[in-house]
């Protein structure tokens, strides 16, 4: 499971494009399309290189009008979802 101290990064073997300002992804591994909303697109753009989850959440709290608690719960759930769909790699 991904937690606050995990280091994460996008998986390789993905293609992405922008549709109506949001990202749509496709994975070599699953061959499925994934659509991201605005916030998810924002997160996706930030995790091109390895990143500590807590740093990512702090960045998002600064950029968006959201409390730390809400951000922690929602972002971690989203990252675990990405991992489950083989779009994200947990480095440590």
């Amino acid at each position, binding site marked *: 499971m991904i937690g606050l101290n995990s280091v994460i990064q*996008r998986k390789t073997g993905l293609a992405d*494009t922008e*549709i109506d300002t949001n990202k749509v992804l496709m994975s070599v591994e699953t061959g499925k399309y994934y659509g991201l909303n605005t916030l998810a697109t924002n997160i996706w753009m930030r995790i091109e290189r390895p990143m500590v989850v807590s740093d990512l959440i702090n960045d998002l709290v600064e950029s968006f009008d959201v409390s730390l608690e809400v951000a922690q719960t929602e972002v971690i759930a989203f990252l675990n979802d990405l991992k489950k769909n083989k779009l994200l790699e947990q480095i440590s």
Partner: protein
Amino acid sequence: MTNLGWCDLTHTLFHQKLLEYQDDRFIQYIQRHQIQSIALDYIEYQCALFDQTVHEKLKCLSREIRMENLKATIGLIELVGLFNTHNIRYMALKGPALSYELYGDIGIRDYQDVDLWISEMDLFTVKSLLSEMGYHNLDSVDSLTIKQKNSFFKAMHHISFQSKNGVLFEIHFRLISDDCKSQYLEFPFESFWANRRVIHYNGSEINVMGEQDQLIFLIFHASKHGFFRMKWLIDLYTIFSQTPINWQSLIERMEQMNSRHLLVQSLLLIDDFFDTTFEKNVSDWIQPTRSEKKIKDLAKAFNLERDVKQFRFCHKNYFRFIRYKLRMIKGLRYRLNYLLFLFRPQNKDFQKVKINDKWFALYYLYRPIHKIIRMFKKK
């Protein structure tokens, strides 16, 4: 929507032609030029007043292209992985790699297939590897006779495959086919391979041509098709307006390949459509000869032609295109070769009519007659 770094083009022919109609004719125009996403980006950047229904249609078309491009890019990543595992040297041409490099997104350019260039020496290895991996060979020659096979390989410069999920691949084993061989014009794989670059895309590494090689190839490719599609001109405009060009070296190479006229026509067309100002020495160099002006004017007319039917056999642009190619190709021998190419039977002819090798020459009669019959049937 991503902004492609447009500058003010409101007074240009490109702007005028793109926004000439704001109804279904606009949709036909952008589809004919395969610039769905580019056109959407442009009209949104310009905040051009647009009919809402047409705007929505365009958005829808752009979405479709982007989804198709995702599939094609995944296909490219898979194939590149396969080639790397089997030590097959390749360079990706146009398609997703060029879209990513020029526009920062694989979804922008419209590409119907994925093109890769391999060494001719690796052709048979690649053919068997792809067949083994479940790719469907669309140019199977198994049923052809020896003479048919020889003729086929002489005329062809690529073989086509389709992956299980429907992505089309063109595996090029040479870049210059018989319809555009020209004196001193050469694209040797080994020297292009030595200049290759690697594009990093979401953790995947994709080999592409060196910058100048790629530019020369794109000029050649667009010229070969008479600049029939605006997307090729936009690619070149983007390169010339956004990347530093070593003009001296580029001009020298084009002159060595006896292809000055191809570079000149590209620059003149860019100037005609995008009102671009080039450096003084470049502007001086591109002063066209009569013949260069003629070839540029023909290409411009092809680009401006709205009705694609006009390029079909015996239609208005068919013979103009032959004239264009005869001006484009340098050297009498090569021009004759092109004329002969027009009659040379192709794989589809072999599939349609089986003629014994002893009477192979009959195919040269069959081809034009068949084309004429087909034309009348269509009419």
